[in-house]
């Protein structure tokens, strides 16, 4: 990520790519980089501007607000008054689960305040992320492999796989709430009397099932696109060489699909860490299904500045996860394939 600045070395001829610019290292290369840099800046400018307006501006503005106290009530007039500068108190209050004390100062947040839920919400968020992304990756890979095969009715399967994803989340959440109701079709079908939204484990799994159902197609489609890029001859050759199905999967499919797979997993992880709609509509965050984003929304209704601090904390948490991901799992699409990372150390 942002750690590796400085000139990128000339690409090595790797993974089918040929370097565009040959010639000796030195002055010529610097010129080449400069001219490519000019090109690159033109090509990247629209993307960066678009992200700048709609993402960067709100983020910066939220960060500015996170250093302001939320409005407090003037006991005489009964009106809210501006809170004034807060320093890092909005942040420390979340991290140490401190809430305002009636007589001034802070106390440990009593159960029932949003402040008392920060670490449990963080835990829940990671739980959901790890379980759903794992399930979605395995299921998505399997679906993609099936869809890549040639068989009659393949287009039907391909269209069907996208159905869960095509239904807007607002409808999906209502649909699952409907299915998971005590007297709903879920319990009826399996002849169970589970209170799906009534205790921790079923509530969490209700969210996980609904989310996995909804987002596996995303994974499947991206992986399928990756599979499509693998020429059939490679498999034929491997078969002739007597490689078993598992060997073919491990030695050919996996490495060649890896870039697409990593992008898919990376973005799913980022999305899962910000999960909001499904648990919010299914359980309203009860029974330990409150994610960080739900906590942010609840806090926005109680005071935006503190919510901005929580959002920034969430941002930092996600940033760290992404950083680790890119660094250790090699999700960085550029590094991995140019060999730049190898060359650099």
């Amino acid at each position: 990520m942002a750690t590796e600045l400085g000139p990128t070395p000339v690409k090595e001829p790797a993974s089918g790519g040929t370097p565009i610019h040959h010639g000796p290292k030195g002055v010529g290369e610097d010129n080449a980089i400069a001219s490519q840099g000019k090109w690159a800046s033109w090509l990247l400018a629209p993307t960066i501007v678009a992200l700048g307006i709609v993402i960067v501006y709100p983020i910066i503005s939220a960060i500015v607000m996170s250093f302001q106290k939320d409005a407090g009530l003037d006991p005489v007039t009964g009106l809210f008054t501006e809170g004034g500068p807060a320093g890092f108190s909005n942040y420390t209050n979340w991290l140490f689960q401190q809430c305002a004390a009636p007589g001034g100062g802070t106390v440990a947040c009593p159960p029932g305040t949003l402040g008392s839920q920060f670490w449990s919400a963080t835990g829940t968020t990671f739980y959901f992320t790890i379980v759903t992304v794992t399930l979605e990756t395995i299921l998505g890979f399997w679906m993609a492999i099936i869809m890549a095969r040639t068989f009659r009715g393949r287009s039907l399967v391909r269209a069907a796989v996208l159905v869960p994803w095509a239904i807007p989340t607002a409808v999906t959440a209502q649909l699952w709430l409907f299915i998971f109701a005590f007297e709903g079709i879920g319990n009826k079908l399996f002849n169970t009397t589970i209170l799906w939204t009534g205790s921790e484990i079923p509530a969490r799994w209700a969210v996980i099932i609904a989310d996995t159902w909804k987002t596996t197609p995303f994974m499947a489609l991206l992986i399928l696109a990756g599979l499509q890029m693998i020429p059939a001859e490679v498999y034929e050759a491997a078969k002739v060489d007597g490689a078993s199905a598992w060997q073919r999967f491990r030695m050919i499919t996996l490495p060649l699909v890896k870039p697409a797979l990593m992008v898919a997993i990376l973005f799913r992880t980022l999305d899962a860490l910000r999960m909001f709609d499904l648990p919010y509509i299914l359980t309203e965050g009860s029974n330990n299904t409150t994610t960080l984003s739900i906590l942010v929304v609840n806090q926005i209704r109680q005071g935006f500045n503190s919510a901005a601090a929580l959002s920034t904390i969430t941002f930092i948490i996600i940033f760290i996860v992404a950083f680790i991901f890119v660094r250790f799992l090699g999700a960085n699409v550029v590094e991995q394939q140019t060999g730049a990372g190898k060359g650099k150390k």
Partner: protein
Amino acid sequence: MTAATELRAEQDRGRKAAQNREKWASVRTYISAAVILFWCLAPAYWMVVTAFRDVGYTYDTSLLPTHITLDNFRTAFDTSFGNRFGQALLNSVFIGVTVTVISLVLGVFAAYALARLNFRFKYLVLGFILGASMFPGVALITPLFQLFTNIGWIGTYQALIIPNISFVLPLTVYTMTSFFREMPWELEEAARVDGCTQGQAFRRVIMPLAAPAIFTTAILAFISSWNEFLIASQLSNDATQPVTVAIANFAGAQPQQIPYTAIMAAGTIVTIPLVILVLVFQRKIVAGLTAGAVK
């Protein structure tokens, strides 16, 4: 028995085993396909069944449709009480197509730069783009609302299109970059040797090869914009609202009643165009497959 007949028998057995294996593989494929179909369609089936059910029997749990009616679909499109579901569908299509086209063009530009060009701060740019997907979307609304109010954009299409572009751009750029990396760029070189300009080479040689990636990304971008609700619920008005907001507007005949049947009807309606879209697009995905095999 001679050695020759033994050998032939051996070969026969081998061929039979191979045929059996093939047969089994194909059976396994069909079983898998059936499981996938069930997993993906069973809940959706329940949505459709509910959509056709009389509102008075909303909570009926018989598996086959009962008390069938088209009322829910009529309710969905009924404009007399200020529902604008039809208009909202058009809005969603317009917003979705615009977002998809623009973000693909921008994404292809950016991905080409990131995958093919050498320049400084590449990692910074990649980090910046990825960073845009890290802030909780729910917290972006308040500042965005202030910004769009200040510049008078509330209730305009661009107030919905531009945020959506930004939401899908990081994914678009990363996917395209990862696919561009896999491209056989030596073909582009070859085309240039044959007299094509770099632009021509890119259009005529690389783009067709990248078709699966581009159409996959297009589907991802379109659906993501099609599903967007949070921003739209605050930044749209009656005229520009997309279908997700229109569905949230569905109200039961009675104050606290949740109109499940009408919601499910709406869900059914909005899913159909996407299924059609996918059926059309996937020809392109398959076309890309054969093109890729030339490599």
